[in-house]
């Protein structure tokens, strides 16, 4: 398979995006880490960060956006679906764009660690800020403050685990590079 076939292949990009979307959904609904502050944090941000580092901005945006949107619909929060789609889509996009800034070749996961962290932090700001703004609009800005610590924790864990897991997967399954678009 040469580079030309791959980049023009709609089947491969659809396969990649739909599987990663499904993984985001599963990791949003399924494994939940209980926290002392109200509720659980989910692992969707881990997968979004992972997708950004291994597959780049567009895949991360679609997987993050569609994935969290679908998870909201399935999970009983359909009113949030559109907002999650936009917020996490933007989060995925920016993590990848920033991490790979200046990188000549390879995947964003090959970038220097501080660039990856920078991308991750921007992602955290977008995610927490996005949910704060929308929450403010829907509930009022003071009540929306309640969710900030939880969202920071979740997106922070997402960045750290995302970095660790993407390195692990690059080593454990080298063909992943050939899937990157």
């Amino acid at each position, binding site marked *: *398979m040469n580079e030309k*076939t*791959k980049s023009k292949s709609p089947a*491969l990009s659809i396969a990649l995006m739909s599987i990663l979307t499904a993984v985001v959904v599963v990791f949003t609904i399924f494994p939940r880490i209980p926290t002392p502050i109200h509720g659980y944090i989910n692992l969707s941000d881990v997968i979004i960060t992972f997708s950004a580092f291994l597959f780049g901005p567009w895949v991360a945006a679609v997987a993050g956006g569609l994935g969290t949107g679908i998870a909201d619909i399935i999970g009983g929060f359909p009113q949030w679906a559109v907002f999650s789609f936009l917020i996490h889509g933007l989060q995925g996009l920016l993590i990848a764009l920033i991490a790979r800034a200046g990188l000549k070749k390879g995947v964003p996961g090959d970038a220097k660690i501080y660039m990856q962290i920078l991308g991750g932090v921007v992602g955290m700001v977008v995610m927490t800020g996005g949910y704060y703004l929308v929450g403010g609009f829907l509930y009022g800005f003071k009540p929306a403050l309640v969710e900030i610590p939880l969202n920071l924790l979740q997106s922070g864990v997402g960045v750290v685990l995302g970095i660790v897991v993407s390195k*692990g997967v690059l*080593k*454990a*399954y*080298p*063909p992943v590079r*050939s*899937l990157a678009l």
Partner: protein
Amino acid sequence: MSDYFCLSDLSFSYKGYGKTEKLPPVLKDLSLRVKEGSRTLILGPPDSGKTTLARIACGLLPRYIEGYLTGKVLLKGEEIPASEPWLLADKLTYTGQNVQEQLLMTTCGDEVAFPLESLAIERQALIERVEESLNSWGLLKYKDVNPQELSGGERKRLLLAVTAAIDAPLWIMDEPFDDLDEQWRQELKKRLLEKKGTVIVFASRYIKEADSLFDNYYLLNDTRLSEESRATAFSKLQALDRGTALNIKMEKFHQNRELRCEQMVIGHERRSTDSTLPFTLKIDRFSLKTGEVVALVGPNGAGKSTFSRVLCGLKRPQQGSITLDGESIASSKRLAQVAYLFQNPDYGIFLSSVEQELGWSLRHSAVHSKQEQIASAAKLFDLNLDENPSMMSYGKRKQLQGAVYYILNRPFVIIDEVDSGITSGDASKMVALLKQRGSAVVVITHDRSFAKQIATRQYKIVDGQIIESEVGQ
């Protein structure tokens, strides 16, 4: 008559990632000529490359899985369009061994409809073809049901329904009789005989339906393909399956321990929408002593995996308790005493080398001879310490799973479908190795003769009850 389908001097190696650019060849200078309207059977022991060959023949490889292919695949004298595989959609249908890899949609009807939509079949005709194909495989009632809710056998039939709906002139099928029960195996044989077209079937074990079904027989082994008569093809396959004799020294480490269940009731979630399967499993008496090999048999969906999950502590029974050496043992404690090797060996793999995977098992132990233990386990299971597990063949990954648990050395071991995907010889060896230091081994298998060969006792699941029965029944 010119050849309808032809493989010409085919050689293939998968890409190596890391130290080697190219892995050792799977196929070397292979040639095959198939006449129009004929039925061909290609036999090959597990890991011989038959799925690789099947995929190459259909143009599915090396499209998104990297490898080096030389030689040609010719359909009606022309090379198949490997860079535009959709052109083959109405000419050739591949029915793979792993059904889940080929299911796309959320209802059975949509699944059958998808290729017909690609072929732009007009809507009314499309709807009729969908209903007809589903009906012919007994699945019409599942038209709006999600295939994930069906049993393994039903999903196989769904794949066959898709194949029937497309009705391409060439069918390439990898283990099509697998997972089907008796009634449907006969149906499949009938359809293959009635099929107006060319059929190539791949298999790794003897299939009795092969009698009077195929015109040509081939054996795939050690990168080569050879034409055989029916008798020699099967006898050679059997010899390869048996492997060589074993010589394993037993050690007395685990002794005189017994796991027991009495008067137990287990909740069993039904897999398929078939309402005749019971909701609970009842066990009157089950006992397992160190040093013995016990077979656990029963039809698909009967509850073998469910029972195993209870034994190893992943699931709690509704009633009854389990005792170890006479004392009741909680499920959380059973996790460390009862090993359970899942049917799919990939559930445990996450590290990048065999050495690391084996080392992971020892990370809690303070033993000094860790390196030696790892090296000797790798040697016993024919594994290369540097190899990356996700790049190894299925059979090797199964061996890795065995090696991981060999190192863990638990007193009780359950192996789910040990003989699927590897030769009987290798399966026997794995059981012997896991039993080597006195562990009790429960072998879940479909192959009654394998059970007879390897086990001293047997439990059978019949109508929701687990009862002791004679080995091999």
